[in-house]
């Protein structure tokens, strides 16, 4: 048994999913086949049966010597006989079988451990041969079928598409399960499957979407009211932390666990919709300093029924109005929570809120207006039915009526299908839907009921659910969709449709303008959320909650600020076409007071995030040293150089470490002990079989050991122990062993700390650009590039190099590439 390795893999890849570009051809193909059984097979030795009438394959000798004692005849182990393999790599099933064999040979899981190994050179030549055959077949396949298989909309794309198709924002997460994202992104065409269960849910989702879009209810009334929070029952004027002033309420403390917080029970949203809020307040007795507060919304009945709207800050003494608009479900309320006030409620209550002289937050009033309706019936309704009149069919229900049903039906379905299918539609395309509507009308369904069946049919048809792309080169409609799903995670808008219609979209200049336009549209937020969020695994930010004993300073405001930092930084680099090397090292970031304090950077006040020039000794700048990244690459208790090191290789350098062996067992981390993780890991570097991978994985991991699980700088590990006081706070952690962030790269270059490490990896800028190119192509097309695409990827990297590695330039280059414009 190999103890050091055991430890390594126990903590590898914690809570993350990974991309593996270098191996992607193999994996992509290998995993597609049904080979569950083969893995459990054990090989032994005996004589072989021949491979029937096949030509002699270059693998024959190896198979005869090492495989066929088990894998032959009718009782072949694992239901696999080598005779099943043929030389025809164009045959999909055969190819996949070969790739499974390849995988097992490379991994060394076959022949089994207790059997003699094939000679290394013989093994290698077989591996090379299979690789070459597979690649040849793959290139041939692409010429006729394209690189990317027909892709279904994923959950986010579906939701955004119905939003833009119909103008409804609606939660469908209970109907549409999260898509698999084993290749790093959850829009991988290969892995997006369909099942009868999903299809049933699509039918239900279509109902829900149409119910929301179509105005069957009477026009809702609009609430427009100024709320005086002095009238709130939660804000008692005596014996509490609130002082009723002439103009509002001064809040001196917030204590959530004791329910000391200002909840606006007097307001409730009566229907779903957007509501506009205006809150007027100022810092009270705050000695010139702004006061921070956050606003949450939800039913507020449970901790999980409350979501953050945002953090705000108001200046001292000067009444200031903050304004925001929020989408609310029915029966939602809002809550106002002052942040960062020094006193706990008992201290204020002891003195009395009327006499208390410490800082507080005055809220003067809250204006609410909503739901905000653009029109009635709403745009979603008009998007389907245009100006057709609504008729009252019962006191509380309206339906669309038509004087000439089939004429209207045809027009409506044609318009709807064109946008839903993201291309021009023919008579043939809408014929089945129209026929169905007619049948329904003939069966005496009302016009609207019949239309709903037709519309629902469109919303579950393959033309809507799948992106239709042509091999080899995409037509302009398909290109429009590829582009809009890349940058918006949604369907093309009218301008893109127009350009596709005139067949001009593919022109380099037009395409360039469109990329710029799409990126500057608010819908490009989806690129930030979905591309960046998955590239950097930020979606996993809540996978663990840091241990409150070891990290009492972690709270929601810090987490929110961290996420904003990364998101704003990404957008800044993108918008200004800054060099992508900024992702590794940068002299600026986005901070607010809370995050600046966490990073130990002085002089930042207030809650709003702003661009800040970083001091040269801050150890910050770039993604690697951001709180958000350091948080998602740690569990709530400990950091692991392996997890973080792998993350850097995988996400930043694009050289993912090989799969960890499957037969190493885990041991438990121990946070009581006095040994550092470095000491625990030290031994494995001396074991060659471990070291070959770990000398790549460990160095960035060690460099990042200077940061704790929430991204705070540390010289020492924290260890649990007896309670003590730190800065007036009772804590249960002590300084443990010292951190040693130094190490050397596999090529021998050494570094003392993270700052030096960053410099080293910045020396190979092409590597960073190549990684991002591969990620952008994987995300932008629904399939990761493979070895066969290397020349094209290199060309894109070359263009980026010629343009100072600008990140936006890189996106342009990706879009301009044949790789992006081909199926």
């Amino acid at each position, binding site marked *: 048994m190999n103890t050091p390795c055991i430890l390594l893999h*126990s903590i590898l890849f914690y809570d993350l999913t990974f991309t593996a570009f270098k191996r992607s051809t193999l994996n992509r193909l290998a995993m597609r086949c049904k080979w569950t059984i083969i893995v459990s097979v054990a090989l032994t030795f005996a004589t072989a049966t021949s491979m029937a009438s096949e030509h002699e394959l270059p693998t024959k000798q190896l198979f005869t010597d090492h495989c066929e004692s088990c894998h032959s005849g009718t009782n072949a182990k694992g239901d696999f006989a080598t005779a099943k393999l043929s030389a025809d790599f164009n045959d999909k099933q055969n190819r996949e079988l070969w790739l499974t064999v390849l995988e097992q040979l490379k991994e060394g899981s076959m022949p089994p451990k207790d059997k003699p190994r094939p000679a290394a050179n013989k093994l290698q030549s077989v591996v090379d041969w299979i690789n070459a055959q597979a690649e040849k077949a793959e290139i041939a396949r692409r010429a006729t079928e394209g690189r990317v298989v027909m892709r279904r909309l994923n959950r986010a794309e579906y939701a955004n598409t119905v939003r833009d198709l119909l103008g409804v924002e609606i939660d469908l997460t209970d109907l549409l*399960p999260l898509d698999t994202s084993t290749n790093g992104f959850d829009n991988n065409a290969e892995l997006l499957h369909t099942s009868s269960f999903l299809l049933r849910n699509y039918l239900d989702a279509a109902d829900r979407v149409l119910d929301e879009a179509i105005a069957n209810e009477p026009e809702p009334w609009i609430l427009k009211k100024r709320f005086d929070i002095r009238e709130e029952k939660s804000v008692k004027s005596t014996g509490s932390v609130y002082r009723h002033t002439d103009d509002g309420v001064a809040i001196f403390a917030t204590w959530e666990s004791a329910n000391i917080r200002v909840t606006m029970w007097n307001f409730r949203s009566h229907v779903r919709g957007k509501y506009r809020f205006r809150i007027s307040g100022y810092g009270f007795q705050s000695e010139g300093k702004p006061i921070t507060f956050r606003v949450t919304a939800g039913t507020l009945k449970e901790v999980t029924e409350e979501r953050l709207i945002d953090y705000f800050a108001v200046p001292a003494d000067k009444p200031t109005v903050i304004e925001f608009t929020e989408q609310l479900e029915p029966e939602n309320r809002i809550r106002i929570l002052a942040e960062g006030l020094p006193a706990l409620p008992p201290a204020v209550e002891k003195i009395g809120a009327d006499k208390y002289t410490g800082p507080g937050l005055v809220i003067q009033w809250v204006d609410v207006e909503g739901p905000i309706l653009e029109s009635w019936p709403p745009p979603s309704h008009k998007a389907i039915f245009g100006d057709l009149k609504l008729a009252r069919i019962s006191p509380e229900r309206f339906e669309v009526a038509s004087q000439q049903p089939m004429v209207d039906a045809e027009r409506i379905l044609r318009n709807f299908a064109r946008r839903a299918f993201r291309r021009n539609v023919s008579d043939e395309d809408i014929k089945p839907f129209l026929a169905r509507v007619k049948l329904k009308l003939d069966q005496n369904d009302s016009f609207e009921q019949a239309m709903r069946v037709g519309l629902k049919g469109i919303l579950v048809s393959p033309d809507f659910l799948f992106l239709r792309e042509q091999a080899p080169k995409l037509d302009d409609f398909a290109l429009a969709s590829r582009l809009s799903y890349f940058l918006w995670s949604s369907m093309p808008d009218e301008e893109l449709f127009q350009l596709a219609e005139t067949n001009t979209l593919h022109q380099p200049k037009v395409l360039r303008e469109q990329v710029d336009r799409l990126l500057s549209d608010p819908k490009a937020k989806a690129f930030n959320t979905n591309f960046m969020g998955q590239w950097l695994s930020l979606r996993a930010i809540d996978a663990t909650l840091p241990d409150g004993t070891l990290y009492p300073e972690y709270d929601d405001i810090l987490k929110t600020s961290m996420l904003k930092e990364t998101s704003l930084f990404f957008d800044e680099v993108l918008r200004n076409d800054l060099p992508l090397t900024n992702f590794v090292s940068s002299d600026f970031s986005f901070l607010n007071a809370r995050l600046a304090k966490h990073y130990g950077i002085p002089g930042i006040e207030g809650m709003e995030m702003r661009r800040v020039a970083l001091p040269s000794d801050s150890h910050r700048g770039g993604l690697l040293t951001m709180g958000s990244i350091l948080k998602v690459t740690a569990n709530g208790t400990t950091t692991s150089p392996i997890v973080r090191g792998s993350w850097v290789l995988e996400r930043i350098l694009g050289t993912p470490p090989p799969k960890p062996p499957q037969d190493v067992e885990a041991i438990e981390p121990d946070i009581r002990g006095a040994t550092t993780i470095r000491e625990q890991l030290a031994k494995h570097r001396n074991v060659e079989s471990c070291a070959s991978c770990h000398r790549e994985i460990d160095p960035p991991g060690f460099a990042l050991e200077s940061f704790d699980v929430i991204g705070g700088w540390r010289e020492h590990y924290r260890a649990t122990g007896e309670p003590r006081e730190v800065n007036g706070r009772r804590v249960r952690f002590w300084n443990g062993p010292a951190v040693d962030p130094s190490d050397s790269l596999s090529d021998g270059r050494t570094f003392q700390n993270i700052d030096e490490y960053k410099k080293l990896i910045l020396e190979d800028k092409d590597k960073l650009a190549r990684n991002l190119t591969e990620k952008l192509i994987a995300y932008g097309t629904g399939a990761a590039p493979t070895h066969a695409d290397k020349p094209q990827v290199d060309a894109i990297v070359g263009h980026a190099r010629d343009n100072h590695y600008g990140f936006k330039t890189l996106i342009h280059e990706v879009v301009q590439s044949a790789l992006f414009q081909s199926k």
Partner: protein
Amino acid sequence: MNVHRRTFIRSAGVSLALPWLNVFADESRDSLDAMLPPRRMICICAPLGLHPDNFFPTQTGKDYTLSPYLDILKGFREEFTVISGLAHAGMGSSFAHQASASFLTGAPGAGRPGFRNTISLDQFAADHIGTQTRFPSLALSGEGSGGLSWTRTGALIAADNSPSRVFSRLFLEGNSEDVQQQIHRLEDGRSILDDLSEQAQSLRSGLGIEDRDKLDEYLTSVRELEQRMSIDESWAKKPKPKVSVEPPKDIANAADLIGRTRLLFDLSHLAIQTDSTRLITIMLAGSSFAPPIEGVSLGHHDLSHHGKDPLKLEQLKIVELETMKTVRDLLSKLKQSKEGGNSLLDRTSVFLGSNLGDGSSHSTKNLPVLLAGGGYRHGQHLAFDVNNPPPLCNLYVNMLQRLGIEADKFGTSTGTLTGLEMSQG
């Protein structure tokens, strides 16, 4: 293969009151088995594991001392088997959480790039016995829509996390207008699907081989759903079973994992009792928030990463003991419900396990496994060699056979599990 219909009809007079006989259609069971109430299966996954020191007994065989967690189930000692040492083949510790995707499928390499899942145990069984009940299977979850059930093509089946919604699907009839509307909806759905298969057929001709595979997956889904909806339609015309309990109220607080588990278990008991389904999968919640339990101040996920901190271990134990109590109460309910001379527990295999052998180290070896009820020779601790265990899928073959399905293989199985024997027919 012989269905002794006459035997069945002769005795039907006394038995028709039993829900399971209303839909006698299975041709694969022999006559003796056909006279007995049907077999069922509930599969439960605790996604953060169960702390092994508290779960596994030290001794093996029949005369073992109950572990702290099993002590909760002491009243059922003779009705469960605890199994140690098992693991799924081909699972590493680096994707320990992702391994929950393979918990009921056994597909190796969950979480690895390009991973594709295979059919889960319950869906495999549903292909054989699913048409006999209103719902072929139920996929439930304590939070989110990720569950344990996967289709033959490796697509996740969205699990339902709302007990009130499931209850209403199972038991709430609505007035005749609602029923009519439901039938209408199903008819509309079927006609839409009908149109779609024609459309998709014409679309198919212009596609390459791999695109065609994708479209075929879609087409197969359309056909399967059409068939299912036609079965649903006939069910929709039959009254739903009546139960004399209040509809459950969903617990909005995701941190309340015990409360949520309890609701799911109660619902599962009702679903089995009324023979609404015979196959249930339940993914328990594993929240990052601290559950509202006395003495617990940290979230379950973080407790599972205890790093041997004694305070965390103590809290972890409190949470997991509460989970075990919900399991005990599920077993009690099944035990108390009688069905033709047997208890429901005798006819229901209740399988509790996890994708994690140890939450702190992320080990996927030595998975906690408990099998209760269902008609096995229970009352023992079956221990296997942790370093060379049989695949967990072997147990799944036992469970399939126990359901009366003639399967000798499932996933990575190499046979059935040695030492686990059936006790009845």
